């Protein structure tokens, strides 16, 4: 993560310099657009950050308990729902998933957990609605939930 931060900032600096060299007024306009978006999105982003903190802080140590009864359909759905509520960067999700597998969790429940964890973010919904609209947000999250379950069941059957 640290590296990508440096790469992105470096890249943007280079592009900004290039843009400034080519057309000063266009560059100023782009900076204005960036500043406006920042002001517009800042409160929502801060809210999302607080939500992630609360959800992770309250529930992260309770996830492991869930995988005890994942063989029932209810347990499986519950894992999918928790995965949707939580929002963990996928790089951290894999070691977590691995430890669940080692403890004897089923492939399907681990896959559904990874997919919902990364693709659906109930905590990021305020930001998604604000930028992409309510209708789009609802469809995307609902369909992601459905395909997460399909992928998980298929992988459970194949592996």
């Amino acid at each position, binding site marked *: *993560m640290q590296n*990508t*931060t440096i790469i*992105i900032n470096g*890249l*943007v600096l280079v*592009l*900004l310099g290039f*843009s400034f060299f080519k057309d000063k007024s*266009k*560059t100023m306009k*782009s*900076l*204005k*657009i*960036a500043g406006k*978006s*920042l*002001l*517009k999105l800042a*409160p*929502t982003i801060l809210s*999302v*950050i*607080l*939500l*992630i*903190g*609360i959800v*992770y*802080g*309250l529930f992260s140590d309770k996830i492991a308990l869930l995988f005890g009864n994942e063989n029932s359909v209810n347990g499986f759905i519950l894992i999918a729902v928790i995965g949707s509520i939580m*929002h963990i960067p*996928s*790089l951290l999700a*894999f070691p977590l*998933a*691995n430890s669940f597998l080692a403890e004897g969790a089923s*492939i399907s429940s681990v896959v559904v957990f*990874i*997919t919902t964890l*990364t*693709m659906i973010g109930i905590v*990021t919904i*305020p930001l998604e609605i*604000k*930028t*992409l*609209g309510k*209708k*789009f947000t609802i*469809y*995307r999250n609902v*369909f*992601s939930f459905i*395909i997460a379950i399909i*992928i998980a069941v*298929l*992988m459970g059957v194949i*592996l």
Partner: protein
Amino acid sequence: MKKQQNQKFNYKSIIFLGILSIVTLIVIKFSPNNSQKIINTSLEYFIQMATIFPAVLILMGLFSVWVSKDFVMQHLGHQSGIKGIIIAFILGALPTGPMFIAFPMAQGLIKKGASITNIVIFLSAWACIKLPQELVEIQFLGIKFMLLRLSMSIIFITIMGIIINKLVDSKKTTNNQFKN
């Protein structure tokens, strides 16, 4: 008119932030065991956002000034077909930041004429098909697991993109954005 409505909407998000801040304080107060974890997690995300988000916004600003609507429409628009789908997957899979950075980027692409199919693919690929992520997945869960999950994700994400495109008209979405 437009500006006024924008401000009104922002007002709502500021109130939302205020309420959440109070809720956070209450949770921290009444759940001291978890307070450290809550503060650490939020702080970690805040630092990540603070270091990456301004750059992303400037990138979007440059994008909106320099990249023509025709160019985006041609490569990611309704007529872009399979080529557009592949570009959307590649754009999403580039190693970048957390999911919430992708939303304003997707908004910029829609405004420039990208199709909803490709936006759904872009966002989904951003979430679950990252290059460094696949390597970690191999390391922890094995190559067979990774390849199987990757290919199924690609198939189902594409299907999902096509369905959502049918359900949401991209023109309407853009208009709603301006109304909001």
